[in-house]
């Protein structure tokens, strides 16, 4: 099986995601970058599972998808809260606490 191609695709998605989290200033784009990392994980899990003919990988991927949905639900709520109070979701302006 062509495992390497899947792993390389996942690694590329992971790197794009990490880059996005570190560089983007909009909270929404950071959330989307995190989703990219989680999808890289899913590709890895399913590819490894198919390689070893083990359902554990697919099951783990299903759990990841479900938990990621819950996580994003909370994340959007917190971003919305921030937007209501500040009229902006620019993370660079979130600097009341420092030191």
């Amino acid at each position, binding site marked *: 099986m062509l495992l390497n191609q899947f792993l390389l695709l996942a690694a590329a998605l992971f790197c794009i995601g990490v880059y996005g989290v570190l560089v983007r200033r909009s909270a929404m784009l950071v959330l989307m970058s995190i989703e990219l990392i989680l999808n890289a994980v899913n590709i890895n899990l399913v590819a490894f599972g198919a390689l070893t003919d083990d359902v554990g*990988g697919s099951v783990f991927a299903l759990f990841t998808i479900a938990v990621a949905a819950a996580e994003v639900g909370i994340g959007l709520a*917190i971003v919305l809260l921030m937007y209501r109070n500040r009229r902006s979701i620019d993370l660079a302006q979130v600097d009341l606490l420092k030191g």
Partner: protein
Amino acid sequence: MLAQLAQQTESFVRPAIDWHAVAPELTLLAVGALVTLLDIVFLERGRRFTSAVAAVGLLITMVPIVTLALDGNDRSLFSGAFVVDNYALVMKALFVLSAYVVVLLSANYVAEGDYWENEYYGLVLSSVLGMVLMASARDLITVFVALELLSIPAYMLASWRKRDLKSNEAGIKYYLMGVFASAILLYGMSLLYGSAGSTLLTDINSAVGASGAPSAVVVLGIVFVVVGFGFKVSAVPFHTWAPDTYEGAPTPVTAFLSVASKAAGFVALMNLLFVGFVERGDIYEPLLWVLAALSMTVGNLIALRQTNIVRMLAYSGVAQAGYMLAPLAVASSVPDTALSATVTYLVIYAAMNLGAFVVVMAVARKTRSAEISSFNGLFSYAPGLAVAMSLFLFALAGIPPFGGWFAKFRVMEAVIEAETTSGLVLGVVVAVNSVIALYYYARIGLGMWANDAPDGDLTPVRLPFSLASALILTGGVTLVFGVLPQLVGDLTQVSLLSGIGG
């Protein structure tokens, strides 16, 4: 493969469940559901009793934990994905009791801030459920689900004050860093799964193995897992969220995050490390060594120049996380000593750090401030609180006879017993840092005893019953563990390595 799965479901037989072993989780689930239900049925009128229901529910959860401990048999469910052993029980008891103290702290605080209170306890309970589950998790999926179950409610708790910009900021920073850390951790887990072909940690241990050079997949997997947990336990350089979140979140939530949530991160790390890849010290030891040394040094140095006591406790927490990581950095040569040292530290740290937060909250009820200068002259108007705070500060600094010294002693014992140069150097770093830390702990103590109260205001602090009982509980435990260290020594003579499989 899915067709194959569908065929299997026809002959599906439910695995045997040992109900006694899962009783603590089920009790917590029932209490959490009950609190939520009370909220739905009684709305505002439910306020008066939800905190009591949550507190009693947590105490009831202690019952199955104690009966399991008395029973003494290691139990293993779901082909080893869920294990109840001494280590798991000690950590479960730690989580439930610290949550109990947090509920005592919240009882007045949340109500007086006029926040919708009932969901608050529901969220605390579900977060505790995740932690209790984590203590038994010996499988990648279980670890991941437990980690998210404990983190997701914590994100909401951190941003609990909806209209307060600082609380928003605490929530968003905690959320983004937490989710990012989970994603990195998950990527590491997917690589570990790939190298073993199974999600069970014991299978990963036999696949990752000791002999020969590790493959790149294994190295990356372990590194990502350790880095992911580095975020969760706020180890330098992944600590940046901690001080901001601790300062912005409501103080009881801060106490919860800095004690229970941090301990849960350590428990997850220890499960993976000791059950999953303990023999791969060549990969994780240098990494943990650097994390431990940096956390201690940077945490203590930044704590020196803080003026806000919650921020100071946050940085002191970063430094304490460094002490707890130190034994793990020699885990492959002395696994049992290292595990028991970190567990001992977690137990004692929980008591003394929660205690410090109780006093901070009690004083803030009068001064409405979290500045270190607001503690000046505390002894002149609240001698009891001043004595208690000194106890907790000296315990955190590690001065006998208060709890903390024994925790530090065990850490030193572990790093020296390893008999490696890096272990000895780490021991020196721990010793030097304990001296640095003494300075900022003692500075608060000196202010309380020697300085005058701000504005000469000597009205005494009114201490509600719940805060007083939390203070007695944490103070008593800190003192007892310091005077009779053998107690906690017996409690934490645990071995994860012998308790696995089944």
